[in-house]
């Protein structure tokens, strides 16, 4: 599903965030992306949904070359990908329902489709009763559930999560991980950048470890780091 061939990313300020990265992620996988701060995890993610362009190398999504997409094809790429961020990025003046519905409006869904689909997704993430609530009245974990609902509402083939539990306590993080696991078990590919050592070690998923812009380790059923 995702293929990187010798991808390098050098930011205009000269920082080399990715250095000759070659990696493949298959459909249905659950992949953790770990590594110290500044290793280039977010940069790699940004290339997948074309927020950044690689400076060198090729990146493919569903066999399409991401780097060669025309401007008007970028939205179509992004509609196949659900994004979950550490800082949630919800619209504060919209209710939970409206925040999730927004993802469908943006892609031109009908009002009827939205009314049918959004409650379904909200109950899937366990927020059936919070549809009319403002994000500010929710706990961090609940807000992240809204983001997950928004990410899956358009049935994406891939969910990219950049440190989704970065702002949450361990118990809440685990609840969310179970939710991600559930979504993955239905066939959605998940790529998650994280610093949550315990979660990575316990879940026994594929782990890509990055250091200094390179992928230094790639293990099935891996752990957060090899040092004890």
């Amino acid at each position: 599903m995702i293929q990187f061939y010798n991808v390098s990313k050098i930011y205009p300020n000269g920082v080399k965030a990715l250095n000759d990265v070659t990696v493949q992620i298959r459909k249905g996988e659950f992949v953790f992306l770990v590594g110290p701060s500044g290793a280039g995890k977010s940069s790699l993610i940004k290339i997948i949904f074309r927020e950044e362009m690689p400076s060198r190398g090729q990146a493919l999504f569903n066999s399409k070359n991401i780097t060669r997409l025309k401007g008007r094809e970028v939205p179509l790429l992004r509609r196949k990908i659900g994004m979950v961020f550490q800082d949630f990025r919800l619209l504060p003046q919209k209710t939970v329902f409206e925040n999730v519905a927004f993802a469908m409006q943006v892609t031109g869904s009908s009002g009827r489709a939205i009314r049918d689909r959004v409650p379904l997704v909200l109950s899937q993430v366990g927020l059936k009763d919070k549809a009319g609530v403002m994000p500010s009245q929710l706990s961090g974990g609940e807000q992240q559930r809204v983001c997950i609902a928004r990410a899956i509402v358009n049935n994406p083939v891939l969910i990219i999560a950049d440190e989704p539990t970065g702002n949450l306590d361990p118990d809440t993080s685990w609840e969310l991980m179970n939710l991600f696991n559930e979504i993955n078990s239905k066939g959605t590919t998940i790529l998650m950048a994280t610093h949550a050592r315990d979660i990575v070690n316990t879940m026994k998923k594929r782990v890509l470890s990055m250091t200094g812009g390179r992928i230094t380790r790639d293990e099935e059923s891996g752990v957060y780091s090899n040092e004890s």
Partner: protein
Amino acid sequence: MFRNAWLSLASVGTVTISLLILGISLLLVMNAQAFTRSLESGVEIRLFLDSGLSRVDVRDMERELKKTPGIATVEFISREEALEEMKKNLGDRQDILEGLEEENPLPDAFRVKAEKADNVPALAAELEEMKGVDQINYGRGMVEKLLAVIKWVRLAGGGLIIVLGVAALLLISTTIRLSLFARRKEIGIMKYLGATNWFVRFPFLLEGMILGFTGAVIASAMIYLGYISLVNRLDEVLPFVTLVTDRDTLLVVIGGLLGLGVVVGILGSAFSIRKFLKV
């Protein structure tokens, strides 16, 4: 929308003022042109001929005049006719012309009408060079003055409109920029969610369009009402001055103003959006 009330107001105001000036200059020029057109039928050039020309010479000249481009009509006025006309003009004081029939001092002449008043000065200069023409006479000054007025209105109006139009564009674009800035988070999220650029652009283009259109509506209303009352006023005070009042012409002016308002609004917001949407 419209979270920045003062700037929105300033944008609408500038659009209003620029379109107001545009509308007024348009009406001024239109009226001046209508007035010249009515003068055109009146403005004539008199060609006084050398004495001692033969009938054949005169007929040749007439034929040549009729061939000259820019000339509408040519009429020969013999010295006898000219004297009669002069007598008529003098009315009961025509006795001072007594005895002139014997030795008529007036020359034969052609009365030439130009197709357009604009051409009269040039045409007159050209005709003065013609063989057999002694002197030339036309409403010198009057025509030039009128043409100068039209030119001046066009120039001054055009200059003002360009300056104000640019100001209106800038103000609208600033208003939209603030709007965009206030909603930058929302725009960012929209783009992550796969919104097309048009989906993102549309509300802001609409906002700019509404700003421009509102300004245009105010300007049009002011011009329409102002002009109608001016026409009525003039009818009472100066009944012989007639302004252009036909409905179609006024509708074209007002439709043009409304259209321009919308265009300025859309252009102004498009400027800001272009800069903002580069992701």
